[in-house]
């Protein structure tokens, strides 16, 4: 098997360190049984849909996204707590994906996972001593119970629980939330792992307590020489903690790279939206202009065509992958703004939206007055809320209604832009299946030259 070429995302041509973790085209699809039709051959929830990145020893790599972005599934897929359906995850050069559960078990000594909910991640039926010490026994790192107790007490002290011994015979329910999270960390790190995936470790804690736990994690990283992948939805924490971050949207990276560059100058509209959306504890910045995307994260079962973010993107344009669904949504959005009579009239023209037939690049409205509707669409289309109409190729009238046909837009590839990688049509060049370019062909030519894709 050929060694994957490292992608640091920072644009530096040569990386002196070898990555600890190399993820290539990782995909985790959950098949859906039943009659739900989906795109492509089989219906599946494409929680992780093609993610590639490297993690270097000693760094903190952030996976940032909202719920539904796939970040939790990605974190679990990295450690095979959920089986990936495609791609590879190399740990110290060895691909974990094809390994059986039995083969993975000894590796779990070196691979740790810190869970999100401190109240539910500890076994209520085990004492703290037993629970935190269990990994030691699993991997045969201690030979007697007293040895285990000593090791656990030491670890408890390390995570800030003093005196460690007093906690050994308590149960998780006897301690507070913040202390429980320290226990989760203690349990994860007691085997001295190399690589740690932390899934929202502080999301469930109060603000005044978060900092303590984050400090603890940073300290332990230094002391124990750890490498973290830190999953969170909180950009502020990510900025503080992470060396590099990746912004996930519907199972793929929208943008990833060096944290500072990403935050100072976000290149993807989604990143910009996330940054704008954060409520700031500063009343003077109230009412600032936020380019908020519309709507919410869509269903991963039927992700939008082309660029996944296009239905919500405030700056989407013709090539972003507009489709039938978007026209229906645009009409609905328009109707929230117009008065009742206009709405009734237009609805009458369009017909029952529920009966509209929506395909990939077409939508057919069962209109009772097809020519009227077609004329109206051609006239008003450009003024509809999104730029959906810019991708319309054709408006046909037929006996069964009006069919609107769209020009297909491809999914953007990752481009190297301003020191990070972005998947957005606003940057770089993507080649359509038919050979035409999205973006500047001249840039495409230079991009294809060898050695420049870093």
């Amino acid at each position, binding site marked *: 098997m050929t060694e994957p070429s490292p992608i640091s995302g920072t644009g530096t041509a040569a990386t002196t360190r070898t990555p600890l973790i190399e993820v290539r085209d990782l995909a985790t699809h959950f098949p859906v049984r039943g009659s739900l039709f989906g795109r492509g051959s089989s219906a599946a929830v494409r929680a992780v849909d093609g993610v590639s990145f490297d993690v270097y020893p000693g760094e903190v790599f952030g996976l940032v996204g909202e*719920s539904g972005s796939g970040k*939790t599934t990605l974190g679990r897929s990295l*450690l095979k*707590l959920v089986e990936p359906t495609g791609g590879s995850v190399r740990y110290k050069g060895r691909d974990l994906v094809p390994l059986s559960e039995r083969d*993975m*078990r*000894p*590796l*779990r*000594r070196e*691979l*740790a*996972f810190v*869970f*999100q*909910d*401190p*109240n*539910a*991640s*500890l*076994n*209520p*039926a*085990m*004492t703290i001593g037993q629970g935190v010490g*269990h*990994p030691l026994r*699993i*991997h045969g790192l201690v030979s007697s*119970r007293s040895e285990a107790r000593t090791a656990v007490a030491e670890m408890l002290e390390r995570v800030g629980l003093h005196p460690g011994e007093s906690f050994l*015979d308590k*149960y998780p*329910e006897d*301690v*507070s*939330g*913040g*202390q*429980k999270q320290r226990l*989760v960390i203690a*349990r*994860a790190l007691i085997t001295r792992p190399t690589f740690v995936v932390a899934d*929202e470790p502080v*999301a*469930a*804690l*109060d603000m*005044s*307590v978060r900092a303590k736990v984050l400090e603890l994690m940073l300290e332990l990283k230094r002391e124990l020489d750890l490498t973290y992948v830190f999953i*969170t*939805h909180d950009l502020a924490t990510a900025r503080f903690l992470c060396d590099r971050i990746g912004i996930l949207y519907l199972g793929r990276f929208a943008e990833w790279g060096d944290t500072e560059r990403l935050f100072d100058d976000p290149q993807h509209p989604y990143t910009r939206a996330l940054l704008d959306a954060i409520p700031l504890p500063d009343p003077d910045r109230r009412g600032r202009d936020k380019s908020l995307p519309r709507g919410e994260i869509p269903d991963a079962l039927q992700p939008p065509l082309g660029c996944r973010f296009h239905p919500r993107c405030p700056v989407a344009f013709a090539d972003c992958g507009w489709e039938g669904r978007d026209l229906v949504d645009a009409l609905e959005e328009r109707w929230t703004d117009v008065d009742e009579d206009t709405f009734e009239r237009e609805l009458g023209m369009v017909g029952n939206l529920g009966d509209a037939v929506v395909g990939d690049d077409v939508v057919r409205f069962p209109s009772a007055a097809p020519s009227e509707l077609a004329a109206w669409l051609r006239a008003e289309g450009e003024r509809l809320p999104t730029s959906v109409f810019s991708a319309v190729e054709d408006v046909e009238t037929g006996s069964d209604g009006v069919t609107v046909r769209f020009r297909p837009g491809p999914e953007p590839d990752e481009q190297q832009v301003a020191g990070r990688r972005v998947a957005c049509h606003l940057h770089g060049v993507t080649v359509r299946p038919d050979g035409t370019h999205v973006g500047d062909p001249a840039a495409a030519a230079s991009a294809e030259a060898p050695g420049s894709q870093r």
Partner: protein
Amino acid sequence: MPSQLRVRLEHAARPFRQASRTAKVLVAVGLLITLVFTLAAFVGPEFHEYDGIQYRVEQEDGSYEQLPRLAPPSSEHLLGTTRDRYDVFARILDGGRLALAVVLFSTLIAMLIGVPLGLLSGYRGGKLDRALVTVMDALYVFPPLLLAIIVAFLLQAYLAQGVPSAAAAVGVVYIPQYFRVVRNHTLSVKQEPYVEAARSLGAKQHTIISRYVAFNVIQSVPVIFTLNAADAVLTLASLGFLGLGVQPPTPEWGYDISQAVIDITSGVWWTALWPGLAIVTLVTALTLVGEGLNDVINPLLRARGMSGAKLDDDAVSTAGGAARDGEGTLAPTADGDHGDDAPGGGP
């Protein structure tokens, strides 16, 4: 290590300390009555003059004097005698011993089969699960008494009519209940993060099933145990009433009632009343224990390990523990988890 055991016991006793007064009273009263019955049944016969199947008394001169027939309660025969000249009190005591023995064995049989199957089925899932669920549902749907009768009939070919066959017949009826409850609880525990955490640590599957799942699922068993025990007394009595229980004239409450039915028309009330009362009292006692245990254990099942206690009555009784919760915990926010202020901050 004795200190480990002490810690475990103390942990097990915790729900009782935090339980509401009603719950504690229920359990205490129920246990007391059951204890009285048990003592009477096993120790009583030592002190009681008559035997359950004794119908005559040996005299000094070697001859036998028959016990009176259908004698009303007196100082001689506290609860009277039956048509067959048996002392009713003696039969109640012996019947109690039988009932307790059968009930114990039958519930043990049901538990030892139902619980492991439920665990395995719930954790493994797949075809095994589907097959077992079908079988158990079929058994469950069967009218319980009818099922017991059928099993009793079938077993008659292999076992003599006695405690083992009665226990088996009664036991089979309750296997589905253990199976169901344990399986359902396993299904929900399986989803808990700490089970996934065990996997992430590298634990083997059998360790996960025993130390992470079973230990947590086991809490639901004692309640079913006592409620089943109550029901088992009734089932056994019903079998006995139909003559399908133990071999007559072995004292058995249900059988005695069936024999006493005729007496009622002739105004004899003591042959039916006492066995009847015995059944009712023991069943009630066991039910009290079961309901009390339910109150004690189940509020904890709701509050423990859940992200965010809703402001309900039961949260109040655990709020004492919650108020101790130092560093504040919010309900998790990401990935669809909602919740109000967590146990650390409910009020």
